[in-house]
C-alpha cells in the first residue's frame, strides 16, 4: 500500500515539475510563448469591443482586465527567468519587448474602461503588438 501511495505522490511531484518552466527556452517553447502573447493581445482587443458596446458590467470589465494583466505578468516573469537557446536571442528579445508593451497597455486602460477614445487607441496599440508578434513568429 505504501508503495502505491509513494508512487502516486512521486507522480504528483513529477507533474508539478512538468508544470514548471525550464530555464533554457527551446524554439518550440519560444513559439508557444509567442502564441500565448498573441492570444492575450487578441483577447484583449475582442474584450475591449465588448466593453465599448456596453455589454460588460463595470465590475466584470475591471476584474477581467485584472486577470488578463495577471496572466501577462506571469508569462513575462517566466520569460525573464529563462534564457533563450542559442540562435534564438533575437526572437526572445522581441518577445520580451512585446510582453512589456502588452503589460503597459493593460495597465494604462485599467482605469479608463469608460473612456471611449482611450479604448479605441488601446485597440490600435494592441493590433500593432499582435502584428509585431506575428513578425517575430515568422522570424523563428
Amino acid at each position, binding site marked *: *500500500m505504501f508503495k502505491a*501511495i509513494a508512487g502516486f505522490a512521486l507522480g504528483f511531484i513529477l507533474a508539478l515539475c*512538468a508544470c514548471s518552466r525550464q530555464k533554457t527556452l527551446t524554439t518550440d517553447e519560444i513559439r*508557444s510563448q509567442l502564441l500565448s502573447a498573441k492570444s492575450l493581445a487578441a*483577447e484583449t482587443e475582442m474584450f475591449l469591443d465588448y466593453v465599448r458596446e456596453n*455589454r460588460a*458590467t463595470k465590475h466584470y470589465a475591471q476584474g477581467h482586465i485584472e486577470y488578463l494583466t495577471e496572466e501577462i505578468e506571469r508569462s513575462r516573469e517566466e520569460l525573464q527567468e529563462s534564457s533563450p537557446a542559442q540562435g534564438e536571442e533575437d526572437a526572445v528579445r522581441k518577445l520580451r519587448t512585446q510582453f512589456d508593451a502588452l503589460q503597459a497597455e493593460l495597465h494604462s486602460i485599467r482605469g479608463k474602461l469608460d473612456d471611449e477614445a482611450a479604448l479605441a487607441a488601446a485597440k490600435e496599440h494592441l493590433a500593432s503588438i499582435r502584428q509585431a508578434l506575428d513578425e517575430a513568429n515568422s522570424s523563428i
Partner: protein
Amino acid sequence: MKNILGITLGIMTALGGFVDLGQIVFTTQAGALFGYQLMWAIALGTAAIIIYMEMCGRVAVVAKEPVFAVVHTRLGKKLGLAALIASNLLNLITCAAEIGGIAILLHLLTGWPEKLLLVATTLALGMMVLLFRFQWIERTLGLSGLMMIVFAVSAVTLHPDWGQLAHGLIPKVSEPDTKHTLLYWYFAVGIFSAMLMEYEVHFYSSGAIEEDWTPKDLAENFMVAALGSLLGSLLTVGLLALGVILFLPRAIFPQTLSTAVFSGAFPFAQKALIAAIAGCLACLAGATVETALSGGYNVCQFFNLKWGKNVPPKSAPVFTGTWVAMFTLAMVIALTGVRPLQLVNISIVFGMVVMPFTYYPVLRTASDKNVMGKHVNRKFDDVIGGVVLVFVTIAALAAIPLMVLTHSGRP
C-alpha cells in the same frame, strides 16, 4: 412532483460534477484549438458516466453499498485504503480549485477583494451543508445551475456549423505534427476525465442512500442519471461550440475563467453576463459541496462508520469532522494564492489515474448475482461497462505522460 424533484440529484451531480471549473475552461480551450474535433470525447464521456452513474445508484440501492464500501470489499483493505487516500486527496484539491473559482466569479460580480470572498464563500457553503437537509442542498444548487443554459443559448445564437459538429462525433487525428497530436490526445483525455470525475459517483451513490431510494426507484435511477448527464453534456457541447465560434478564428487560447464566462454571454447584454456568472457560480458551488461531502462519505463508508447528511452532526462525528476539514483545508490551499486552474488541471489528470480503482469494483459488484439478485447487470451492461473500463484504463495510463509531454496542455 417527487419524481421531478428527484431529478435534481442527477442535475446537481452532473452540473457540479462535470460542468465544473475544469470542464468550463478545458472544453472552451479544446474548441479554440481543435474546433469540433473532440465532440466524440464528450459523447464517449456522456455514455460512460450514464452507464456508471446508473450502476453506482443501482448497487447503492440494492446492495446498500455506496462506492467506497464496494471499493473496500472488492479491492481489499490495503489497495482500497490507497484508493481512499488518493481519491480524498483529489477531492481536496478539486474542492480548493472550485472555492478559488467561486472567489474569482464573485470578484467579477461585486469587485470585492478575492481573499475576503474566498473565506466568505467557504463559510457560507459550510453553513449551507450544516443547516440544509440533503434534498434542499441538491435542489438549490441543481436548479440554480440551470442558469448555465445561457451558454447553450449563446452557442445556438452564434450559429454553430451543425455539420462540422456532427462530424466531430467521429474520432480522427489529422494534426499537422507530433506536438499537436499530443495536445489533441491530452485534451481528449482531459474532457473524458472531467466528465467521469470520481466524486460524481461517490456523491451520487451516497445521495441515493440519503434519499432512501428503494429497488422500486430503479427506473427513476436510470432517468435521473441519464437526464442529469445529458443536460451536463449539452452544456459541455455549448462550451465547446463557443470556443470554436468565438476563439478559434481569432487565434485566442482562453487562459482564464473570466474569458470562458464572457463567452457564455457574448451575443447578449449585461443581464446575460450576470446569468452566466450566476450559472457558473452554482456549478462551482455544487462541485465544492460534492467534493467536501464525498470526502466524508468515502472515509465513513470505507471504515463502516455512521454517515449521512440527514443524521444529526453529533451522531456522525467522523463524517461531520471530515467534510468540515475538507472545507477548511481547501480554503487554506486556495488562500495560498495557487491558481485554481493549475489545481484543477492536476486533479483532472490524477483523477484519471485513480479512476479504474473506482469503476472496476463498481462493475464487479453490479455483475455479482449473489449481491445484486435480480437487479444484476445484463450481459449488455457488462459488455458496455467493460468496454468503458478499457477506455478508462488506457486514458489512465496515458494521462501523466501526456501531461508532461504537452506541459499541461500548452499549445
